Each structure stands twice: as structure tokens, then as C-alpha cells.
């Protein structure tokens, strides 16, 4: 809804879409064909009706339903985001746990470093760095396009590092907090080994809040994919959005935004449900 009115605030896209030489009659015909001449509330009503039926309108530039374009590009973006999330988790969780349990060791320092770098270095800078470092020197790691697993490595890695930093920081923080809880100290006082305390008492209590964080991270990754897809020419939703912006294809911009927002909301809903299912205290 927000998006609809924001997009229309700029006024009529007709003038932008057609060339400068278009006659007033041509513009008028275009407006009528796309319904831009009707009152804005009526446009809104028919648009929302469409959204409910899964119809997000027609792309001006491609002249086909936006939903079709989006669903065509979605798998590539999902592949990239899921790969990035997996890379981030595989590194961040063990590192955060180790860094939290042994704060004053190499692991602790590494966790802090990954956290700091992940938060400070933007994904597009990682992307540039990786292309300069690897794609030129190492054969078989292409830096553009989507063709098999090898082409996924660099974009997914560049996308994952920001989330990896966040997840490491959060995991470490949660472990540090849980470590001080009375039940952990009691377990330690009963003479349990450090390993037993870590696996039986600390980890389960860290894993639960981590789930909701992972859900949020995933939606961040979807947003971050705009840069990464642009740099690596990865044919996903982010690249489509960048093209739509470039072409002033307002219906498409609107459709992509609504789609991503709905997708993000459903991910948050799923994580909330999952959370309630695992942690009975929330029910």
C-alpha cells in the first residue's frame, strides 16, 4: 500500500515511459491503456484486487505480467541467498560459540574480528575485492553470470560476509549472556566438564533465539542481493529491480517491492511459528 502511493506520488509515468516526440494523442492512448487516467483511488482499488488474486500488474518495459518475470527470476535469488545464509551459519555459529565460551583466546579474537569486518565492510566492497583477487587469477571461478556451482561461489561468499559478521556477534553475545546464568554455574559447580556444560546447557539455550535472528538475516540477504546481483550479473530479482529502476518501469518496481515485502513477512511468520513450536515459553 505504502509502495503504491509512493510510486504514484511522482505523478504519471506515461510522460516518462514514452519518448519525447510522442504526440499528446499517443500519450493519451497510453494512459488509457494502462489505466493511468482513472482517479487514483480507483486505480488503487483495482490494483489491490489484483494483488489478492496474485496479479501484480503488467510490466511496461517487458509488456508481460510482472508476476511471470518475478517467478522467473526468483529461483536464482533464492539460490544465492540460501547459499549465502548457509555459508554465514557454518562459520558464524561455531565461531560465535567458541568466541563466547573462550573470550580471551584466539577464537574470541577471531569472533570479534569477523563481527567487526562483517559489519564494516559493505558487500559490494567484498565483491570487488573477490573479483580482483580470485576471478582474475583462479580459473573456474567466474565473476559474472549464473552457470553451475562454480559461478555461485564468489557472489554467495560476498553476500554472506555481512550476515556472517552479524550472526557471529549475536551468537557470541548470547553465549556470553547464557554463560553467566545460574543454571550454567550450577552445572559447572556440579563438576561437569566444560564440554558437557557447553553442549547440554549453553547451546540449547542459544539455539532457540538464534532461529528468529536467522529469519531476519535471510530477509537482509534478499535486500543485499541487489548489489551482488548487479556486480556479478546474477540473473535474479535484484538485477531485475535494478533494470526496472533504470527503465522507469514503475509497475515492475512496485511489484518486486511488494513481492519482496510479502516474502519477508512470511519468512518472519514462519520463524515466529517455528520459535513458538520449539520454545514452549512463547506459546
Amino acid at each position, binding site marked *: 500500500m505504502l509502495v503504491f502511493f509512493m510510486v504514484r506520488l511522482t505523478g504519471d509515468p506515461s510522460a516518462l515511459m514514452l519518448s519525447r516526440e510522442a504526440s499528446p494523442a499517443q500519450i493519451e492512448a497510453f494512459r488509457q491503456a494502462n489505466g493511468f487516467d482513472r482517479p487514483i483511488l480507483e486505480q488503487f482499488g483495482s490494483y489491490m484486487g489484483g494483488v489478492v488474486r496474485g496479479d501484480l500488474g503488467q510490466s511496461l518495459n517487458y509488456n508481460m505480467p510482472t508476476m511471470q518475470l518475478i517467478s522467473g527470476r526468483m529461483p536464482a535469488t533464492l539460490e544465492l541467498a540460501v547459499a549465502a545464509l548457509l555459508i554465514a551459519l557454518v562459520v558464524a555459529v561455531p565461531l560465535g560459540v567458541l568466541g563466547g565460551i573462550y573470550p580471551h583466546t584466539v577464537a574470541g579474537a577471531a569472533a570479534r574480528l569477523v563481527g*567487526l569486518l562483517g559489519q564494516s565492510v559493505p558487500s559490494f566492497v567484498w565483491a*570487488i575485492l573477490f573479483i580482483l583477487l580470485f576471478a582474475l587469477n583462479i580459473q573456474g571461478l567466474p565473476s559474472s553470470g549464473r552457470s553451475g556451482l562454480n559461478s555461485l561461489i564468489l557472489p554467495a561468499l560476498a553476500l554472506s560476509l555481512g550476515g556472517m559478521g552479524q550472526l557471529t556477534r549475536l551468537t557470541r553475545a548470547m553465549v556470553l549472556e547464557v554463560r553467566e546464568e545460574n543454571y550454567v554455574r550450577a552445572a559447572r559447580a556440579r563438576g561437569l566438564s566444560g564440554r558437557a556444560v557447553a553442549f547440554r546447557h549453553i547451546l540449547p539455550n542459544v539455539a532457540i533465539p538464534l532461529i528468529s535472528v536467522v529469519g531476519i538475516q535471510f530477509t537482509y540477504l534478499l535486500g543485499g542481493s541487489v548489489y551482488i546481483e548487479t556486480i556479478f550479473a546474477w540473473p535474479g530479482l535484484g538485477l531485475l529491480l535494478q533494470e526496472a529502476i533504470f527503465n522507469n518501469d514503475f509497475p515492475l518496481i512496485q511489484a518486486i517491492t511488494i513481492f519482496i515485502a510479502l516474502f519477508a513477512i512470511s519468512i518472519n511468520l514462519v520463524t515466529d511459528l517455528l520459535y513458538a513450536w520449539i520454545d514452549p515459553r512463547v506459546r
Partner: protein
Amino acid sequence: MAETSKLAILRLGGSQRTTTTTSIWRQIVYNPGGAIGLAILLTLVFCAIFADVIAPHGTSGDFAVSRLPEAWKDGGSSEHLLGTNRLGQDVFSRIIHGSRVSLLVALGGVSLAATIGITLGLLSGYMGGWVDRVISSFVNLILSVPYLVLVIVAATIFGRSLINVVLIFGITDTPIFVRLTRGEVLRLRSQEYIEAAESLGAKPSRIVFRHIFPNLIGALITLATFEMSQMIIYESGLSFLGLSVPPEVPSWGNMLREGMQGSAFLIFPWLAIYPALAITTIALAVNLLGDRLRDVLDPRMRR
């Protein structure tokens, strides 16, 4: 008698406050992370203010020296330390000028977001009821959309200018401040000293500004610092996508975009590397400072 003891308390409070301010300052400066972060940040502020004086070259280019590499490389000129771009503009000078955009967006955006966000957060947290419901649902609505996508759409619509970028960041970043302020107010409201003040008949405005707000400042400063680093990154990202300040304005993101066009940067890597380095250095500095500020000002949130 009552007056004198009140004065004594005031005086005590006053002197304690000055000692805490100095000790906070010491704790920040005598820490490696805090000191490095602060030093880099101050350098940036200095560059931004005196850019016209410091920068060795103006913003106009000279085609005679188009695409020179760095001074220490073959073909480089000692006139242009970090090389020149296609138009013959000096990269080093443009980076110095670019600090203005980053700093203005970060300061302007965070100030705006903090002002609106703190006001709404105090209202929402203290008044509760329908005010809270309206504000909270608005906040949740904005937070449900991935931030970058929201900013991209807003920037596409409102067009490229510095003031628009500041407004967009200021408004879209508001919910974060609302959420923090509201949560803290809710937590503090149930504390005994607030109940005590209420039962003494203190007016709501006095409770909010005298008893609640001062306890929020630490957390808010910390948040503002982190949001500044995020805004510097997001602004350069937006420039990089061609959606921030107009292309002729030297901003780090614009330089990066220029350097990345086609596969130009494989041949002229200095056009992309130095702006990227500038963005990263500043974000790193602000984060280091933010980490230290959190440890000092907001020990509960220690991570």
C-alpha cells in the same frame, strides 16, 4: 533547611556529573579501539570541512591526464597521488571532497531519524493505548520490508539530490529509534523510582524528561553511532546503484560506480579500490568507536 539540603544534593549531583563526563571521555580515549575510531572520524570531519583547502586539485578534470595510475606506478604522475579518472579528475582530491556527502548524509540522516524516532518512542512507550498501537503498527510495517529495498524504491521515486537522500535515510531509519526508545521506556516505567516520582505527583512531562530520558541517552548515543556507520554504507551503496546524489557530485559511491562500469576496474583498478577503501575505513572507524561507546555508556548491552 529543606532548601539547603536540596542545594547540597544538587551540588553533589552536579559535581558527580562532571566527573562522570571526564571519566567517560577517558575510558573512550584510553582504549585502542575508541582512540583509533575517534581519530579517523575526526580526520574525516576535518577533511569534509576543509576539503577545498586540503585537496590538491579542484573538481574539474583535465583530459590531458586522463586515467593515470597511482603516482608510484609506471606512467603515474607525482601530481596525482592516487591517479586520475577518465575525465582526468584527481582521485585523491575527489575522495577528500566525497567525505562531505558521506558525513552530511550520516549526520543529517541520523539527526532526523533520532529526533522523530525518540519523540515517537517516548510518546508510544509512555502513553500506551491507541497512540502506542498506531505508532507500533507503523514501525512494524516499515521494519517488515528489507531496508535496502525500501530505500531503493524511495530514492527511485524522489529523485537524486542530497537533501532527498538525507530525508529518505532520516525517515526510513526512524523505526529503529522508535523501537529502542519505546522498549526502554516500557522497561523503566515499571521501576520503583518512577512509581515514587508518580506518587509524589510529578507531571508526566517531568517524569519523561527528568527521570526516563536521561537514562536512555547512553543507549541512544550508541545506537546513533552504529546507525551512522550503516548510513555511510547505505549511501555509498545507493550511489553505487546510481540512486543517490547526482553523478557529477564526487561521492565515494559515485566514484565506485564509475570505477566499476563495464569491466573498467580490471584495467583501471585504482578507480574502484580507493573509494572502496575510504568507505570501509570510515565504517570500521565508526563501528570501533560505537563498540567502545556501548561498553562504556551502556554496559547492559555489552556484546
